[in-house]
Structures are given as structure tokens and as C-alpha cells.
């Protein structure tokens, strides 16, 4: 049953979570907002639309050791197979420097709470969960994911880039969260979506929401929905995206594309990685690690003897957009796009997949 809390109760709930968990939430990052570890309520940012990065990096560490091994004589011993920590935030150490981008866990910090995950990102996490589960479990992703409580919020602000409404992945949320907060103006509606969520809220004595207040939530959502300016027509999108690989809009966009990979790095559902070996000055100590990778990069499809399946920039750009808006559906039963608009916003040359979709549809 949805409950009601006032500002003071919310503050005390957050305060409690900060104390008891590793608490991640939106923090100021220069001109924008990003996810950061929060030690005091003051750091929390309230007025933001989307964080620069999606929350995926909290589970899929940009660079992470898969295992280390020791090579002594004919014996090879695998010494470390699974990171027990959480992904580090902020200024991540660079590739070969001492630390790896995972923080060891201590005491109660075993569990983390991510506060302020917006509905689109919750859907992104849901999709990533599938990728890292299907066929083979990815223990590295799952070990972090399983220790995470998702505290979502119903969206009330919309940016020029947002189009989650077109997918139905926002501004409201039905599941995928542990806790969900809706700002009703002078009160908050809080809903739980899991056992963990119930346990947290169960400790507080909150009153049930009245039917009136539930209606108020619907009104909040409706008001938000009216704010969207960007739309993606998703009718037949799976076929439309692949119907005209020779359409001039592809070349037009590819000429502008810098192959910088920003689009894929900010996408909440891009999951590709590369695997590399790393040594030491003592050559018997080795490590296998993975690092974030992108289909926009030339080396991504490179194979031995100089072969490359996507040498042309245009073929890489098509891969990104077609994967998001077409291929992912038969793969996972989801279109791997949640309408967060990050790839449009952060593309240095403003390449816009909603525009490409429109062009292909001939609108």
C-alpha cells in the first residue's frame, strides 16, 4: 500500500539510508548532474532531469579485473575471480595505474542505495539485468547489482531531449524499483516494489495514502506528460530502422559523426566491453580484465590480419542506431532505448536518432 510522508520524514529516511548504506545519488558536476557517493544530505541535487552518465556504470565497471593469475613453472594458479566491491565513482584511476576501479566493501556498506534513478534509467537497468543474466550469468555485474537498492522517483521535469513517453518507459514507473517516490507538492507518496523496500519503509510509521492522494499522483504524471516536446514514433520501428540502409540520411549523419563513442558511453543500455591481458614487471603475475568498449570505435570489429567488419564510419553508426531501435527487440524482447535522450544531448555534432527514424519513415 502506498504511503505518505512529509519533507521531514523524507529527510530522516534519506539520512538513515546515508548512514546505513553506501548511498549514491545525483550530485552537482560542474554545470550538470551526475551520480556520486553522498555523505551528507546537502550534497543531494533535487532539480535535475538526467544525470550525465546512466547508472549502468555502477554495475558494469568501466574497467574491471576478471581474474588474476600466477604463472609459476608449469603451474598456473587463478588467484582472484570475483570482485567483491562496488564500482568506484568520480575520478576513476586510469588503466594501468595501481588501483582498479572497484572499491572494497566494509561493514554495512555491503549494500548500496541508488537514489533518484529516474524511470527511464530503471528500465535501462532492467534491460541490462537481462543481458547479464541470459544464457550465462555474469557474476561481476550481478554481484554488484544484487547488492543494490533502487530508489526511484516519478519524473516531474522534462528536458528537450527526453522522449521516454514514446516508449512508455517514463515519466511514471510500474515496477523495477525497490522504492518509488512521487512529489505531490506538499507531501510525498512512497511506494515499495520489493521485500527490501518494504523492510526499509516498514521501520517508519507512515500512514497509508488516501485515494485522493493516489489521484493526485496521476495528475502529477499527467502534467509531466504534457511537457514532452520530443517524440519518437515507435510504430513498426523494428522494420523501419533496417528498411533503408542506403537512405541518404545515414551518409549525412556519418559525415558528421566523430566516432568518439560518446553516444554509446552515455546510453543506459550499451553494454559492450573488450577483454585484455595485463602483466607486471614480474612476468609471472598476470591479470585478465575487461574494459568498456563501443561499436563506434574502429577497433571494435577488428580481427586478425587487419580485417575489419565495420571499417566505414557509416557502418558503425548504423550498428548503434539499428541495434537500439531494431535488433535488440528480437534479441531481448526489449528495444534497447529508454528515451533518455542522452545520446542526442552528448553527441558533439548533435546526431539525433529520433531524426534518423523520422527520415527513414519519410516524415
Amino acid at each position: 500500500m502506498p504511503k505518505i510522508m512529509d519533507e521531514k520524514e523524507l529527510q530522516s529516511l534519506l539520512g538513515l539510508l546515508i548512514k546505513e548504506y553506501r548511498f549514491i545519488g545525483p550530485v552537482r558536476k560542474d554545470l550538470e548532474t551526475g551520480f556520486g557517493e553522498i555523505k551528507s544530505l546537502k550534497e543531494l541535487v533535487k532539480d535535475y532531469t538526467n544525470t550525465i552518465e546512466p547508472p549502468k556504470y555502477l554495475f558494469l565497471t568501466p574497467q574491471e579485473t576478471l581474474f588474476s593469475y600466477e604463472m609459476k613453472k608449469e603451474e598456473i594458479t587463478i588467484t582472484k575471480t570475483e570482485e567483491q566491491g562496488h564500482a568506484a565513482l568520480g575520478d576513476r584511476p586510469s588503466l594501468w595505474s595501481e588501483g582498479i576501479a572497484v572499491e572494497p566493501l566494509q561493514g554495512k556498506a555491503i549494500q548500496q542505495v541508488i537514489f533518484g534513478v529516474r524511470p527511464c534509467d530503471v528500465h535501462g537497468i532492467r534491460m541490462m539485468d537481462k543481458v547479464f543474466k541470459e544464457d550465462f550469468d555474469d557474476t561481476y555485474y550481478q554481484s554488484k547489482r544484487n547488492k543494490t537498492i533502487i530508489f526511484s522517483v516519478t519524473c516531474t521535469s522534462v528536458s528537450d531531449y527526453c522522449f521516454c513517453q514514446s516508449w512508455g518507459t517514463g515519466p511514471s514507473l510500474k515496477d523495477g524499483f525497490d522504492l518509488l517516490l512521487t512529489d505531490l507538492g506538499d507531501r510525498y507518496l512512497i511506494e515499495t516494489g520489493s521485500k527490501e523496500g518494504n523492510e526499509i519503509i516498514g521501520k517508519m510509521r507512515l500512514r497509508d495514502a488516501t485515494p485522493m492522494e493516489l489521484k493526485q499522483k496521476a495528475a502529477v504524471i499527467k502534467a509531466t506528460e504534457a511537457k514532452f516536446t520530443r517524440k519518437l514514433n515507435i510504430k513498426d520501428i523494428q522494420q523501419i530502422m533496417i528498411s533503408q540502409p542506403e537512405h541518404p540520411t545515414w551518409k549525412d549523419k556519418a559525415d558528421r559523426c566523430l566516432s568518439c563513442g560518446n553516444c554509446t558511453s552515455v546510453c543506459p543500455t550499451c553494454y559492450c566491453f573488450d577483454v585484455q591481458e595485463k602483466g607486471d614487471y614480474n612476468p609471472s603475475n598476470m591479470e585478465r580484465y575487461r574494459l568498456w568498449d563501443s561499436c563506434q570505435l574502429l577497433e571494435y570489429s577488428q580481427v586478425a590480419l587487419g580485417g575489419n567488419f565495420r571499417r566505414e564510419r557509416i557502418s558503425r553508426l548504423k550498428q548503434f542506431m539499428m541495434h537500439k531501435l531494431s535488433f535488440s527487440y528480437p534479441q531481448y524482447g526489449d528495444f534497447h532505448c529508454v528515451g533518455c535522450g542522452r545520446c542526442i544531448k552528448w553527441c558533439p555534432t548533435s546526431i539525433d536518432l529520433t531524426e534518423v527514424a523520422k527520415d527513414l519513415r519519410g516524415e
Partner: protein
Amino acid sequence: MSVRNNAYVPEMATIEKIERETNDVNTYTLTFKDKAKQKDYSFAGGQFNMLSIFGFGEAPISISSDPQDRNEIQHTVRKVGGVTEALFNLKEGEVLGMRGPYGRGWPLKEAKGKNILVVAGGIGLAPLRPVITQVIKNREEYDRFELLYGARTPGDMLFTDEFDHWQKVKNFRLLFSVDAVPKDQRWDHNVGVVTTLFDQMSSTPSRTIVMTCGPEIMMKFALKALLARGFNSSQIFLSLERRMECGLKKCGHCQIGEKYVCSDGPVFPWAEIKDIPEIVGWK
């Protein structure tokens, strides 16, 4: 620490034997160090393993041995880059890592009672060798068998010492071709790209399953020639190659359209992939 349930961590395997096939191709006979693992391990022809050369990295390599032989596993590898070179520097008795098998193999079940046409180029014969050994071992289950095999030069042909044996099998027809014959080598067969063998081929579309593996350009031409001869898109099977980092449908590299080569393939019926934008041009 239990390593077993971590899909990324390979099992240790010993190199039992190294056989030189050509200048740059060796066949490695491997057994898992863990005897129980060796006993449990089973695979289908066309599937592959991820081989770890410790200190150097990992590479996807097809299994080239007989799926019914549970005592050992063979890989036939061409030396082309970092990992494969490092493998070539290993000696018998040394240890490497192996995990698998992954992917979908050749349609040997569908081929039961039917004719089989195999078109292979270069190292592409390696993943098809399990098909050949299986057909020989279970000869009565299949009808006619024809192999078209092409390599760059006679010296680049794989498994030549098995050819005699294969030739003798009932209802087996082998056609060989090379792109060129260096002056010092003898060659009694066809010269030209594999597809030039199609004119001598006896297989027809009727009741035939086609399996092909080789360089992508070769497969393209083979496909064209087959379609032109009336073979339809559900009787042709191709083994595709893409970059792979994990083999576990996670790293994303091996995708072609909606397909993951590592788990939906590497063997695909043409019907399944022919409409993928990146492949449409093949027709």
C-alpha cells in the same frame, strides 16, 4: 574459492600433442587437467572453445576433433596474431586454458538421411572435420557426401594425410582446388578459387544439406553459386566469423544484426541471416 560457476574463468588443459599441418597451421590435442571435466565434456561439430594462452589472451577456436571421442579435444589453429602466435610457442606438456563449448554446431541431425555438400576454404576445413569424421563413423545414417575444398597453395591444405582415408569411404566424393601452385610443388587437381569446383560438382539441390566455412569472400561466392543452382535458403548453412571477446553473449562484439555469432551461430542457415542489413549485400 569456487571458480566453477564463473563463466569467464577457463579450465586448465594440457597440450598432449602438437601436429604440424602446414607452415602456419598446427593441430593441438588437449585434455582437461580435471579428469571429471574431461569426462563430462561433450560438444557438437561446429562448436568452439575459448582458448586462453596465459600471459597473452584468449581466442575463439573451433573444435576440430571427433565429437564421439571423449578422451581428448583437438583444435586446428592458424598463426595470425598475438594469441595464436603465443600458442605456437607452447610445447607439448604445457598448459593452456579452455572454456566452452559454445555456440550452435552443424545441422548433422537435419542432415540425417540426406546428402551432404561441404564447401570449405583454408582454415575453414577445421570446424568441418568433425562433420566428416561423424559422417564416416555413422556412414549408414547419411546419403551421398561431397567435399569441395580450396586452399591458397597445395602446401596450405589441411589434414592431407587423412585424405586417403576419406577417399576410400563409400559414396564420398572429394574435389580439391588451389589458387596457385608454386613451381616446386606437384598438383594433380583443379587450380582456381573453390567456386570453380562447382562445375565439377555432382551435388544437386535435391535432399541436400550444404555446409560451408571459409573466408567471408569465399562464402559469398559459394552462396551465389549455390543459389544460382537452385539450392534454397534453408538448406545452406554457413559458419560465420566475428570478433569475440567472451563467447558468452555479453561483450557484444560478435553481433551481426540481431544475431550473436557466439550463441546463435557460428553456424547459421542462410534463411536466418539473409535479411540482416550487413549481410544483404551477399546475395
